């Protein structure tokens, strides 16, 4: 089971009310759509819960990060069914399986860590000598003749730029949503309206996905309004108060 604080984290979301671990189960059983889950609200609930406690439970934080990033991944894949294939060649179902697999692996390692800790406790009264005996004969280490090319090769390898690391299956490969929240807020403080497509042009698909999540979170918070002339047309983003003005104008017209 998850550590208590994360597992028992009570959530009150639009789409779901109950403990975090039930949410996870429902997602894995595909009884709940990832896209309906308000990730920002979950983070907020966790932060609030953490703040209520005197102690910072790093273990719970680590667990939480893994879960939330996996959730975000699921959500992004569900939002971009076509691009999901391109992103990680994973279907949402496969992503769910991947999540379960990753959690199981992490859990096993945590169990192994707990076993090691127990073992360490049990071994506390056994002392071995670490290092050579005080009166042991001294051993000479004789090294065979070496090839100087091996040195050049070693340095050449160190001078090679590392491969562009594929973080395709890493849990934390997303830029923070907050980054885009801030960015969009800043843009809207200067301009009343902007085109989402123009704003995220040149960003990677993953970044664009997270940017869209940020957009949805802002919309949910009532900070912005979204409009689109037709499917696949540019998404127009405007301040929420402007939208209200438009609505009022529309109704009065």
């Amino acid at each position: 089971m998850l550590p208590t604080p994360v597992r028992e984290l009570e959530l009150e979301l639009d789409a779901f009310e109950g403990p975090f671990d039930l949410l996870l189960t429902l997602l894995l059983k595909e009884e709940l759509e990832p896209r309906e889950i308000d990730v920002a609200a979950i983070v907020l609930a966790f932060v609030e819960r953490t703040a209520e406690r005197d102690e910072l439970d790093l273990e719970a934080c680590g667990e939480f990060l893994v879960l939330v990033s996996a959730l975000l991944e699921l959500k992004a894949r569900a939002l971009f069914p076509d691009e999901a294939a391109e992103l990680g060649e994973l279907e949402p179902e496969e992503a769910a399986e991947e999540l379960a697999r990753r959690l199981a692996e992490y859990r096993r390692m945590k169990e192994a860590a707990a076993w090691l800790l127990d073992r360490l406790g049990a071994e506390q009264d056994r002392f071995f000598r670490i290092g050579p005996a005080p009166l042991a004969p001294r051993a000479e280490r004789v090294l065979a003749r070496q090839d100087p090319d091996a040195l050049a090769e070693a340095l050449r390898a160190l001078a090679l730029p590392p491969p562009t690391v594929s973080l395709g299956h890493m849990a934390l490969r997303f830029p923070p949503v907050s980054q885009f929240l801030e960015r969009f807020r800043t843009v809207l403080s200067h301009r009343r309206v902007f085109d989402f497509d123009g704003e995220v042009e040149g960003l990677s698909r993953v970044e664009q996905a997270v940017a869209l999540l940020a957009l949805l979170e802002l919309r949910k918070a009532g900070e912005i309004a979204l409009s689109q002339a037709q499917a696949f047309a540019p998404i127009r983003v405007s301040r929420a108060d402007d939208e209200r003005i438009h609505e009022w104008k529309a109704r009065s017209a």
Partner: protein
Amino acid sequence: MESPLRLIALNPVDRLARTVEALLVVASAPLSLDELADATEDHPERIETAICLLRERHAEGRSGIVLEEVAGGFAFRASRDAADACARLFERPVERGLSQAALETLAIVAYLGPCSRPDVARIRGVAADSAVASLVERGLISEAGREPGQGGAVRYRTTPLFERVFGLESLAALPRLDDLGEDAAELRERLLEVAEARAS
């Protein structure tokens, strides 16, 4: 001073046992049966007999020096009665405890090693740099080459000291991952449910 008569009367296995005793008291790491056989130029079966004798002589409660099978070989350690005295004089390699991050990293390296920092980060979901550094400093893990390919990351494996500190006869003495906890089984069940739901 010992009389020549007694030297002559000394049982050959007893003589071998003394030589093994001598080797174990100066060795800096546990010695395997083969290493003992090579050093004594004797047969492994006879070494085993000598070890039996020494195990009895250096048993807990009978001597301050206890013979133990650990890390793939044999080594002497202090008797448990003397643990308090030892603790006053010597610092254990993990005296100040290992953080949760370090323990998890150690578990990953022990089970999946050799593996790199990115490997550990992938499983734990957070960077493992300081945990790895602290484990290297304590001598519980050490470098084991780099990952193949250009700019490969350094890989790590556990050391014989790790086995000694955790009292493992070898890495094979680690519990099987499948046996650990019911959580994994529970998750697997959920996973199967997902698969079945999709198949139906």
